């Protein structure tokens, strides 16, 4: 029988206290994480933003973005005024005030000038690795989703690719070092001493020498591409599968070959998805330090990547500076002081801004495409 006493209890419900504890515990951890993130971003914003932005028009200090990295000289002149000058201005100053003594001179590596070199290097590394990764990744994804029969072997391949995505980037760095830097074949007339193997080609003096590409833009791009490939393959395959089977059926039934079907009825409709996820991949490629540490990056370089080259192709075989590696250098290799902060926080701030822009871009793109591509 219906018993109102049982249905409408008086007092606090059973388990009320427990519920309260669990709720505040879970909420507490969530807000703890939020507070940490807020502190982190707040600190970088407060210390970094003034480096890039300034009060008067045009409000952005392009100097910092476009000038080369230099050593900072800090000294007192005869009147006791403190000067902070990057190396080039410092030598100009000395030339102008010849014979005037300066006092308390200190130098801080990498802390003067701007970060044009690291920005350019990161841009090149990102561009190169994305071209490689998209080419191989999309090809593999097309094969997996459109051509391969769904056999246990293919499932194993897919699983292997998924697992590859979880490998720490330092492992890719070491892999890239031992393969691209030290072992891949090059065609040359003058093989190096440490070549692992040389094969004659019978064209002039040229031989195929397994000596690697040295630490270079090329090796860095290849390593970064390897690191990001699993992500690109998985995301591309997902986008390809999201294209309704009906399009493929219709196209095949119209007498299209499989490749025509893919080219005209599958790829165009999955391309937006592929590009969106690639934008996120770019964020990762641009931000990784470990894979380029041994394969492409240098801490200091006087020229921008495209300067001082004999031929434009030499840019591929030369080392570059890179933004994340530059940040690592600034943080770990030079003693921190009030004079190094500008470079340190400025670089981190620019870097975060870049990553945030790319993420935001891919989020907006995704939302737009979702609205547009409905079937």
């Amino acid at each position, binding site marked *: 029988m219906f018993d109102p006493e049982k249905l409408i209890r008086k007092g606090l419900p059973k388990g009320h206290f427990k519920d309260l504890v669990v709720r505040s515990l879970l909420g507490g951890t969530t807000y703890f994480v939020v507070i940490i993130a807020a502190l982190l971003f707040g600190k970088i914003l407060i210390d970094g933003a003034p480096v890039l932005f300034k009060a008067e028009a045009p409000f952005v200090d392009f100097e910092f973005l476009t000038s080369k990295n230099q050593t900072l000289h800090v000294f007192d002149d005869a009147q006791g005024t403190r000067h902070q000058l990057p190396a080039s201005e410092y030598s100009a100053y000395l030339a102008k005030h010849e014979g005037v003594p300066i006092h308390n001179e200190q130098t801080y590596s990498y802390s003067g000038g701007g970060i044009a070199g690291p920005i350019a290097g990161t841009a090149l590394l990102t561009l190169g690795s994305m071209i490689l990764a998209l080419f191989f990744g999309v090809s593999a994804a097309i094969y997996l989703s459109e051509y391969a*029969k*769904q056999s246990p072997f293919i499932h194993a391949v897919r699983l292997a690719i998924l697992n590859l995505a979880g490998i720490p980037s330092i492992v890719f760095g070491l892999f890239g070092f031992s393969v691209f830097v030290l072992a891949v074949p090059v065609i040359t007339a003058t093989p190096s001493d440490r070549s692992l193997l040389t094969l004659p080609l019978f064209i002039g003096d040229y031989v195929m020498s397994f000596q690697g590409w040295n630490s270079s833009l090329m090796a860095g791009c290849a390593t970064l591409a390897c690191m990001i490939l699993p992500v690109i393959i998985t995301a591309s395959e997902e986008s390809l599968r999201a294209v*309704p089977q*009906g*399009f493929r*059926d*219709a*196209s*095949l*039934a*119209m*007498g*299209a*070959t499989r490749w*025509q079907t893919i080219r*005209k*009825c599958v790829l165009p*409709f999955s391309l937006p998805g592929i590009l969106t996820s690639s934008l996120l991949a770019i964020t990762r490629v641009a931000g990784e330090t470990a894979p380029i540490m041994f394969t492409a990056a240098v801490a200091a370089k006087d020229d921008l990547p495209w300067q001082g080259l004999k031929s434009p192709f030499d840019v591929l075989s030369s080392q570059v500076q890179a933004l994340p590696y530059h940040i690592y250098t600034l943080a770990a290799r030079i003693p921190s002081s009030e004079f190094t902060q500008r470079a340190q926080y400025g670089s981190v701030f620019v870097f975060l801004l870049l990553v945030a822009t790319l993420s935001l871009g891919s989020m907006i793109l995704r939302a737009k495409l979702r609205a547009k*591509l*409905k*079937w």
Partner: protein
Amino acid sequence: MHDTMHHPPASLQEACTSVAVHDLDFCYGASQALTGINLEIPANSVTAFIGPSGCGKSTLLRCINRMNDEIPAARITRGGIRISGIDIYDPSVDVVKLRRDVGMVFQKSNPFPRSIYENVAFGLRLRGERHKTLIDQAVEGALRASALWDEVKDRLHESALGLSGGQQQRLCIARTIAVKPEVILMDEPCSALDPIATAKVEDLIWDLKNDYTFVIVTHNMQQAARVSDKTAFFYMGELIESSDTSKMFSNPSIKKTEEYISGRFG
């Protein structure tokens, strides 16, 4: 068949039979979907496939343009299909060319998310047609034939996804007839349409049947009775009865057929 079958052996050619299915067994992996189907589909007429759900109508339809080739482990285990006397499962037959001669309209309308014009021009472009005026003509012809021209002539370059469901299905038909196949297979083309759109599709089939051989799968007995010249009744993967539609609906020779047509099971 213009492309596929250049010189069909004259002895095999039967003037009035377009598609001939003989002794066909079909399996999806281990499960048999069709058993011992023998059926002649006459040219330039409408043949309806009827039968309860899961009896193998779609399977047989997809055998005729070899769309089943796309399904892993699905295969014909006995018998075969001839179109104009040519065994379409012969290794020398190019399946791509076969499908250009045997068009298909699917149950779920599936226009490409492109413009209306591009949808209809798709097949022509596949064949390498570049001539703008020729494509224009073919597109207009196909849209007129499928009774869609007046509704879309001012918005040819707008997305096909902006059309109503019935218009989309007629667009799919236009896309199929734009390339002038010999045989048109339709798998429940009206199942998602309202009575008015259905009537339009039926009129269209009626108008076009002098030029094409239609095979239409339908769950709608009235539709089969209205549009088809010949009806085939399937049950559990077997062909129970096939005959002229008028005879089938007025005087079926097998009890099961009568029960199904009168709606007593299925």
